[in-house]
């Protein structure tokens, strides 16, 4: 989530102005936020967001469906008289922005919280009011941030909901939301506005096999974990293939989903052609998966295998990051692994065509 921004101009003669700047050196120790009161629909900020403490501007923490940030600001009320500008009041405060979507809903929530940690002089009694709007491919829902008088240690919150318009089957829509918070000190005629922009959000109705719409934080790459002890030959093949340089391992270059049926069939047919005999009870396993852009046909390169795979390859085996690995593994395990890739990763994390993901064998 981008840090709020505000313009700061010195007040005119005789005038008072309000100016907000990011606190230059946010404290490194964890800030414990006061309890966020349950104002109607405002949800408690997740523990992992509180634990993250204060972040640098433009920094946020996120998971596949949520993003959260805490930023510290200083508001100064100034007065200019006889050509001299003095600070008459100071408010130190934290802004927390938290937005979340769902695996199977077209709606996103974006809530914002202001908590002053100190208020002095003419900053006492500063009020806050907020409006919010969504960016693209969306329609605005309800906003609730009526004018609130800020008090030290107390949370002033607002919530905003919006809906994606990417609800037709196959549609994808980049979106996001912005809060505009207006802070006004009682003695000042002027007010200052903070703008708090969400992390990028992506809504889609483009996950094969389900008809729901859902919204993710696309900057987060999801992964699936297969327990090595349970997944036998499948786990061993994937692990060895990744160790040989092929992409997809956790911490390395990801794989990217491919949904085009003809291309997936081509990937499968190249890696596991009719010419490779399948021993009884075994089926052909390929890595990178046929359902990825890195697969045998779309990813290019040549085959490689392992001594225990019961695969006889022609020509020189490939090495490094380009190519594909082929292995005969237990047919039941192979089928189940593909089913789980879909039901534990592609569907719940909304991995659509082109989305990155990693595969980990533990």
């Amino acid at each position, binding site marked *: 989530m981008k840090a709020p921004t505000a313009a700061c101009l010195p007040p005119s003669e005789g005038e008072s102005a309000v100016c907000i700047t990011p606190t230059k050196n946010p404290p490194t120790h964890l800030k414990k936020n006061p309890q966020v009161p349950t104002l109607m*629909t405002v*949800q408690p900020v997740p523990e992992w967001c509180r634990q993250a403490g204060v972040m640098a501007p433009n920094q946020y923490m996120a998971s596949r469906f949520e993003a959260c940030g805490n930023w510290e600001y200083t508001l100064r009320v100034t007065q200019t008289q006889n050509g001299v500008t003095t600070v008459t009041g100071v408010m130190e405060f934290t802004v927390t922005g938290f937005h*979340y*979507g*769902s*695996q*199977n*809903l*077209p*709606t*996103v*929530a974006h809530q914002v919280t202001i908590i002053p940690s100190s208020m002095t002089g003419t900053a006492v009694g500063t009020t806050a009011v907020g409006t919010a709007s969504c960016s693209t491919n969306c329609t605005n*829902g*309800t906003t609730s941030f009526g004018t609130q008088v800020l008090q030290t240690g107390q949370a002033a919150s607002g919530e905003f*909901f919006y*809906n994606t318009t990417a609800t037709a089957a196959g549609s994808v829509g980049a979106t996001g939301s912005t809060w505009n918070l207006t802070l006004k000190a009682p003695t000042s005629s002027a007010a200052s506005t903070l703008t708090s922009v969400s992390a990028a959000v992506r809504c889609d109705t483009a996950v*094969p*096999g*389900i*008809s*729901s719409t859902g919204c993710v934080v696309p900057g987060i790459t999801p992964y699936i974990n297969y327990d090595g002890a349970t997944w036998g030959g499948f786990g061993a093949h994937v692990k060895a293939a990744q160790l040989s340089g092929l992409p997809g391992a956790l911490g390395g270059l990801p794989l990217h989903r491919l*949904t085009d*049926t003809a291309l*997936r*069939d081509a990937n*499968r*047919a190249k890696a*596991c052609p*009719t010419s490779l005999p*399948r021993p*009884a*009870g075994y*089926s*052909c396993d390929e890595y990178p998966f046929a*359902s990825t852009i890195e697969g045998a046909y779309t990813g290019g390169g040549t085959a490689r295998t392992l001594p225990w795979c019961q695969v006889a390859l022609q020509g020189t085996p490939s090495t490094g990051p380009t190519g594909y690995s082929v292995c005969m593994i237990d*047919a*039941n395990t*192979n*089928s189940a*692994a*593909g*089913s789980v*890739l*879909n*039901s534990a990763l*592609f*569907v*719940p994390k909304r991995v659509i065509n082109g989305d990155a993901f990693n595969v980990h064998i533990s």
Partner: protein
Amino acid sequence: MIISGVYAPRAAEQAVELVVEPVPAADPVVALQASRAGGTQQPFRTTLFHTGISSGPISMTVNVLDAPPEPALEEWEDVHEVSASLPAGRAAAGGPMEELTALGAIEDDESGDYRIRVSAAGRDRAPDLVTATVVEHYLVQLWPESVSPPRVLSAVSEQGKYWAARLA
């Protein structure tokens, strides 16, 4: 209820699954906030049957019945029965990761325990291969019945014997 008829789903990963997706929430804002507390319910998913082919089109005739039909073993190679507790929602069938073929809506009063008999033919024609045309045929018969263990009535093809031995 699931609509009887002839369907052409795509198999993948040597499987065809039955998926039932819940009806979308009436109030998405309320549902979104509820999702914070309890997490999101996944669609119901079960393996309807395994195929010989790795992936490709198959022919599937679905018959929704009131009572168990007489088995017609001589017409098919492999026949087995499983039970499933079907929830209400939108039913569809197809292989993992595929676009699914819609089968109809299961209403609230139609949800419950069903017995499913699957009859298959052609599973040894292109085992573990990608096919462009239909080489395997299936008959899926379902009727209301309390849950009981899987039962193999016939296993003639090599693929049929392999999958029959591994029925959950």
